[in-house]
């Protein structure tokens, strides 16, 4: 009897630290975000608010959402446009370009060593600490000392064509945003894809070759169709993580200074999650920032439910398995 209780308790004991972490780092912020999103908490009423926390003295209001949805905040529209540009273009690098690259590396490159070198090249940004990766970009694009301008000059691009700042001048700034995030994000798709390509039975490829397919036709008619689920998985997963990610933009462009917008706004790289971050930590409008985040959370949850419907549990957990 005692043993069987022990059996049931022991796993819980092992899981406890993890469950505690989840509660602290995930559930409680979520509850707070929902709560704060319906209040007008800011730096001005902060102390009073904390005293009345979770009592009915706090006025619950829909003001924040009115500001967002009725365009009372003039920047919401632009932020939305930048976010769509960000998610769609980085996603196409992460999901589609990474696919082409994986096929090139894992199928067309028959030399194992070369294939491995190429794979590591794309993994480098992922294993570099984020702040160093960001600093390397900042240095790379520096108009005075940067390698980029130096290279372009060597290739014969006249000085007058070069922008005074890659960081500020649109559309270069936005291209930069896409590249910085695309390069570091591509590795995720590539790991999933290369594993999936390697799991395709060689006989299938051989059969197609014997049937008269060229190497290119093998890629198009056998490999890509077989990667259907991995492709969907990477797309789904990356959409979620891109919607809520802003760390590289924050590290390169900064969140805010002065008026609280930094150069992210003028460079045209202010994505939704960074906007929420800015509202909270540069302008200290905590209620409004929570409301902004809440919209992202809602979209994310809706997507996750949709994905479960499409994939089923097993495919979401085993993305690299090719179904044969």
């Amino acid at each position, binding site marked *: 009897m005692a043993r069987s209780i022990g059996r049931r308790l022991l796993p819980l004991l092992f899981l406890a630290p993890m469950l505690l972490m989840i509660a602290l780092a995930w559930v409680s912020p979520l509850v707070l975000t929902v709560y704060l999103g319906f209040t007008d908490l800011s730096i001005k009423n902060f102390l009073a608010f904390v005293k009345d926390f979770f009592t009915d003295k706090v006025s619950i209001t829909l003001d924040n959402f009115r500001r967002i949805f009725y365009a009372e905040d003039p920047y919401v529209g632009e932020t939305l446009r930048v976010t769509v540009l960000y998610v769609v273009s980085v996603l196409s690098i992460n999901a589609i370009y990474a696919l082409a690259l994986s096929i090139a590396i894992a199928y067309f490159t028959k030399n194992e060593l070369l294939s491995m070198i190429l794979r590591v090249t794309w993994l480098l940004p992922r294993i570099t600490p984020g702040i160093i990766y960001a600093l390397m970009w900042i240095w790379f694009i520096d108009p005075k000392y940067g390698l980029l301008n130096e290279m372009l000059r060597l290739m014969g691009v006249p000085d007058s064509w070069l922008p005074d700042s890659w960081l500020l001048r649109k559309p270069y700034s936005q291209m930069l945003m896409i590249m910085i995030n695309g390069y570091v994000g591509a590795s995720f798709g590539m790991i999933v894809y290369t594993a999936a390509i390697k799991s395709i039975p060689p006989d299938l490829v051989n059969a197609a070759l014997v049937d008269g397919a060229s190497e290119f*036709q093998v890629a198009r008619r056998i490999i890509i169709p077989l990667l259907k689920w991995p492709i969907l998985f990477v797309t789904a997963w990356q959409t979620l993580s891109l919607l809520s990610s802003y760390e590289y933009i924050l590290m390169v462009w900064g969140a805010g200074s002065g008026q609280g917008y930094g150069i992210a706004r003028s460079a045209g790289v202010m994505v939704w999650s960074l906007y929420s971050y800015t509202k909270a930590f540069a302008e200290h409008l905590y209620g409004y920032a929570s409301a902004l985040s809440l919209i992202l959370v809602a979209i994310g949850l809706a997507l996750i439910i949709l994905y479960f419907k499409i994939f089923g549990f097993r495919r979401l957990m085993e993305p690299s398995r090719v179904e044969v």
Partner: protein
Amino acid sequence: MVRVTLDNVSKFFGKVKAVVDLNLEIRDGEFVALLGPSGCGKTTTLLMVAGIYKPTRGRILFDDEDVTDLPPKDRNIGMVFQSYALYPHMTVYDNIAFPLKLKKVPRQEIDRKVKEVAKLLQIDELLDRKPAQLSGGQRQRVALGRALVKEPDVLLLDEPLSNLDAKLRILMRAEIKRLQKELGITTIYVTHDQVEAMSMADKIAVMNKGRLQQYADPQTLYNKPANLFVAGFIGSPPMNLVEGNIVEENGTYYFVSSSFKYRLPSGVGELIASETSSVILGVRPEDIKIVLGDGDDNVISGTVYVVEPLGRDLLVNVKVGETLFKILAPADLKLEPGQSILLAPNEKRIHLFDRKTGRAVI
């Protein structure tokens, strides 16, 4: 249809020598079986003929054209893989149509040919299904259909029946043989099942450890095995093999082992003694007669060890000293374990192999 020639072909994977100096000629329209134990290089050989692997050394010819460096798509080959390798994302119809689509055959003609092949193989009911929804036998026929639909010059079959149950296997064996004769396609058929090879092929190439052991028609292979490996591999139950020496006494030659002495037919002894004296004697189970009571003078005496009824015959295990003989006897023979009997090998059908080289001496 073409003649396929392998001219001193070798394939090495790093240190692994999968195929070594293979010479083989398959005549136009011939059905040749590649027979050998697992890992002897059968699949590797097929993949070289198909153009998937490039030989490390040697040449492959189709008729008189050197195809060694030709990519698979330019060889017009149909192949059934060991795993069938059906495209899991395509229906049966699309699987069979795939080679034709790649050839840019007009749509109506594709449709006609796919249906024709499907009918021939009796899979016309299955055209809308995906491979995952098929049984092993059905998959095998789809794979065969995909290989046949392009009207290949050479058909390569890699153990196509190994995944089927015994009954279906015998059925499909006859089907494939009939089909091959009807279409007259030059065919290489890989198997490790000697019965399959013997019953289907015009000629059999026996391989072991990447090397060709013997290339002959089934009868020759059975009656005149070129070496110990072939002798032991072909035939079931296998040939009895006994180590011994050739000894001369008063002008007569005897085979002497640790447990018995057997007089060799005149002429044979001299012939062998001139080459070597340490040999291995081989006699097939059906080439030994069991003699009850007194018999001829040239017999070996032993005791019955175990009797295994096989239905049509009895498989009798007989102990002669330390040596165990397996003998096929008529089913109505009454034998008891422990019973003393005499064995009379058929003089004309004994085999002798050089113990050092393993090669057949007669």
